[in-house]
């Protein structure tokens, strides 16, 4: 930690000192509450480093404390995701350490559904007994853990499950980008990086850097737009980044596949594709050309509501700018997990980019090596046992990468009696993965649900045991990396609540109680030491002292003309039998979404959702500094297109009722021209249901309120936007 004393605002502090001696009525109070910059001239400021835990970007940051209490945080200049900046969530979420809603003791659910505080010893002992019973009766494959990958959480939860012999480790991806991951896995293995700095044209399909934030990416994009980068924004909604775009293609939600197929058709029929690239780096092109033959712009126009001429124009434009042009790989909305056709849509974008020949090229997309950590070997890290069974659900979704798995299929497993004991670490599936009632009901059928969280999440409400983690800023974690930069989350402030415990301690002690303690005979520091062992000494030193360091890597590839696909044959497979295993075609094809609102039914819509800059998923609505912005600017309103609103007699600020086969929810309308008429849109973070999280109570709706419990059959993702809702004005 670096120490420094902050220079105060001298003028005022001498003035206050002079008058203080006179003594006045409420002067003491006044001084106490007065400005730090004037009152505490000699407050001791300390700086340490950490990585933000408010979303999966894990931006590097510096923690400033004042007299031992968190003052502010600042983006790390060297961390690739922050590059000096941080988003609002980062600043706000850091304060969570002091939030009134923090869990401060282990809890056990009583018969009547209420919770009582218990000791850690009791919690461990009872959980341990139940786990042992489940293993004795159904084997370790009846246990599962779901987590949103964070450095220690990912490492400990996986090892915890694996130590039992279970492979049932799942991530949030089923509700995020599992369809996309599945598509990449069988075309070019993994997602490439984008060379925005040299690109001429970029198409975003359901991706907004200004809403679903990665700070450095936003910064870079904004500067490249100033340089002249041409953006084509495909989104049913004019999102927060759309004003930077030259074109806004206001597509009907769920139909992006048709657009990409038609753009492919234009490139193929007009022979605008990169012939060299196709010849050298792809297989199956002829079959693909045949497959897209009928998907003309006119055909797509019907489905997407975009003019055929526009589809043709953008396709030709992309081809003209190729290879300095690409469809950005996107993240969640259009083809991450939302629709029945999401995996196929993702596959189509990958193949369209191949037509452009942009892989490996300057201004295109490329691959490179990242940081390689040392192995965990030696007496402290006992070798894990052989797994007793494959990952639950992997037979049903054979294409899905097992590193993520479908955390939704696990819930189905409870109902079938296959899964008996569930652990959740930093994960809130009840309100995040499908509608709360449905997921909650399933959890209630399990023998054991253990939730490790920092607040009483909706999922915690359905747990038998809730274990209180420290917040990220209060703990040290195992290393992680982004690109060629490694980071170690260092402890920024002392523990705020005595009876909370950091994730590593919780898992280590849980393991002991469950009879697998021999696999956890190390500390976080031991893991760090082992993982950074291969790094040069000065890097190690920097990491341990400053938390973030650039690591020399062998092959930090740059776009040099050669695509260097990470897959085995360095080729993109336009057509592949592997897809047949998962229920898709060898060739790409148009797939209808599961639901399609009929635009003739004036009150019928699809409910779509998106990130809002100030909130993360389901976990920030209780952060006072963030939720106040929602309240100040009515950000919880549900968007509806002006014409449709008029037809339904709905005006700005009116109370509306949204109903679907799953639920009926009230909401407040935001009437706007910035939305496709066939859908209504909500920010995805509201509709908090835990009675313990009061700051955001009563605001907005949850995007999952109207999504039935279902899974995309090709990847197991949650099809978060497959729904049909009816909207009507509520009487005041």
């Amino acid at each position: 930690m670096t120490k420094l004393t902050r220079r105060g605002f001298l003028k005022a502090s001498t003035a206050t000192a002079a008058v203080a001696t006179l003594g006045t009525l409420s002067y003491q109070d006044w001084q106490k509450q007065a400005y730090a910059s004037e009152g505490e001239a000699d407050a001791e400021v300390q700086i340490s480093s950490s990585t933000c835990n408010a979303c999966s970007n894990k931006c590097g940051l510096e923690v400033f404390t004042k007299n031992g209490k968190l003052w502010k945080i600042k983006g790390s200049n060297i961390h690739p995701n922050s590059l000096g900046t941080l988003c609002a969530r980062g600043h706000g979420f850091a304060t969570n350490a002091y939030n009134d809603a923090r869990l401060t003791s282990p809890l056990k659910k009583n018969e009547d559904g209420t919770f009582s505080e218990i000791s850690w010893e009791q919690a461990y002992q009872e959980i341990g007994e139940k786990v042992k019973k489940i293993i004795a009766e159904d084997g370790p494959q009846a246990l599962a853990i779901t987590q949103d990958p964070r450095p220690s959480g990912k490492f400990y939860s996986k090892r915890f499950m694996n130590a039992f012999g279970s492979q049932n480790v799942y991530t949030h991806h089923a509700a995020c980008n599992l369809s996309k991951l599945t598509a990449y896995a069988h075309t070019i293995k993994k997602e490439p990086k984008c060379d925005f700095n040299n690109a001429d044209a970029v198409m975003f399909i359901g991706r907004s850097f200004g809403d679903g934030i990665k700070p450095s990416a936003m910064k870079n994009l904004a500067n490249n737009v100033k340089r002249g980068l041409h953006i084509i924004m495909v989104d049913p909604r004019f999102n927060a980044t759309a004003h930077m775009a030259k074109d806004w293609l206001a597509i009907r939600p769920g139909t992006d596949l048709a657009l990409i197929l038609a753009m492919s058709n234009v490139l193929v029929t007009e022979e605008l594709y990169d012939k060299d690239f196709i010849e050298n780096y792809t297989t199956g092109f002829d079959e693909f050309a045949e497959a897209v033959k009928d998907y003309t712009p006119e055909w797509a126009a019907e489905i997407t509501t975009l003019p055929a001429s526009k589809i043709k124009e953008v396709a030709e434009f992309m081809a003209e700018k190729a290879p300095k042009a690409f469809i950005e790989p996107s993240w969640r909305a259009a083809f991450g997990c939302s629709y029945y056709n999401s995996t196929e849509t993702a596959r189509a974008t990958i193949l369209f980019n191949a037509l452009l020949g942009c892989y490996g090229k300057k201004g295109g997309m490329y691959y490179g090596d990242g940081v390689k950590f040392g192995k965990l070997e030696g007496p402290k890290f006992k070798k894990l046992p052989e797994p007793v069974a494959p990952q639950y659900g992997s037979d049903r979704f054979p294409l899905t990468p097992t590193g993520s798995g479908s955390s939704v299929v696990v819930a189905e497993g409870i109902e079938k009696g296959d899964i008996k004991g569930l652990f959740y670490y930093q994960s809130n599936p009840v309100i995040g993965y499908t509608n709360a009632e449905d997921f909650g009901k399933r959890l209630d059928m399990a023998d054991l649900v253990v939730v490790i969280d920092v607040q009483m999440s909706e999922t915690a409400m359905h747990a038998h045991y809730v274990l209180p983690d420290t917040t990220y800023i209060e703990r040290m974690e195992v290393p992680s990396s982004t690109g060629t930069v490694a980071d170690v989350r260092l402890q920024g402030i002392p523990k705020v609540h005595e009876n909370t415990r950091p994730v590593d301690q919780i898992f280590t002690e849980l393991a002991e109680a469950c009879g697998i303690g021999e696999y956890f005979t190390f500390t976080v520091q031991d893991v760090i030491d082992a993982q950074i062992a291969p790094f040069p000494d000065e890097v190690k030193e920097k990491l341990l002292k400053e938390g973030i360091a650039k690591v020399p890597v062998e092959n930090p590839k740059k776009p040099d003309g050669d695509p260097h696909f990470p897959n085995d044959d360095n080729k993109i497979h336009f057509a592949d039998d592997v897809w047949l295993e998962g229920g898709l075609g060898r060739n790409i094809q148009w797939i209808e979404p599961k639901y399609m609102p009929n635009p003739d039914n004036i009150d019928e819509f699809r409910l779509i959702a998106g990130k809002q800059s100030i909130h993360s998923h389901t976990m920030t609505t209780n952060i006072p500094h963030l939720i106040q912005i929602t309240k100040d600017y009515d950000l919880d309103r549900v968007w509806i297109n002006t014409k449709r609103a008029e037809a339904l007699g709905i005006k700005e600020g009116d109370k509306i009722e949204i109903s679907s086969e799953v639920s009926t929810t009230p909401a407040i309308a935001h009437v706007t021209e910035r939305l496709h008429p066939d859908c209504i849109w909500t920010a995805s973070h509201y509709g908090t249901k835990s009675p313990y999280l009061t700051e955001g109570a009563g605001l907005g709706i949850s995007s999952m309120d109207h999504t039935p419990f279902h899974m995309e059959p090709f990847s197991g993702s949650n099809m978060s936007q497959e729904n049909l809702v009816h909207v009507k004005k509520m009487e005041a």
Partner: protein
Amino acid sequence: MVWGIMITWYLFLAGLSAGAFISSVYVDNKYPGRDKFVLISRIVALLALAVGLILLIADAEGALHNPLSLFFLLHGTRTSVMSWGVILLIIAGIVQFIMLVYSLFKSKQNKLIDIIAKIKKPLEIVGVISCLGVGAYTGLLIGVVKTAPLWNNAILPTLFLVSALSSGIAASQFFSAIFVSNEAKGLWSLKKDHLVLLIVEMLLLFFMLFIVNSGNAAGVESVQSLVSGKYTILFWGILVIGGLLVPAIIEAIEIRHVNHDPHLNPNLILLFVVEGLVILGGFMLRYLVIEAAVPLNFLGF
């Protein structure tokens, strides 16, 4: 805009105080012997001033937390209308206090009263000037706020001054009539001047609204909210008809009758009605001007 009802009251009471004091000086000189009228007017004036100031300070939250900060008012900037106002209010307050003491103990023989009696004329002059200043100040205070077209125009300070005098005169008559009805009656020349003030006020009000309405969007929005929007009823009903037209008409009729018959016995009920309405109108003017102000929008949308 951020100022609310407390500042409205303050502006109204400060103006009323100024008008009531001036009215007392006027009657004292024009109608010698109406000592009770003068006394009551001065009590009203000083009370209004005191309450107004208390409201001003109550609205200044910082001063409540840290009363010492009030001393900095005396260090005020030369450019701050509020700091001129504070000085004017202090001068007016001191003079009003001395003159009240004089009115109260005039009949008694003592040194202090003798001294006051000697400097009565210059005191009256200082008092009247500072009160005229206070009356104008209540308008200038908000008049320098460039962003609110309803405030930032050449007419508003004069309008507020006229309305201050008018409601002050009304108040001195109203309260005198309660306690010493005979002294409040038959002040025809005061009534004539009052009528002139009401007519001038009406003209100023309409000029001001006309000018503001022919300016930018914020001005138009303000004026529209008064004449045909949110504040229509208060504006037409209470300010224009109740606070200006009706009292002016009644006073005009009364004065015409007096011109025909100089010994006419003034009607006390009518006095209460007229002066009461003028006071109400005076408050309503401040209230509406504060509430209906819309700030300019520089964003271009």
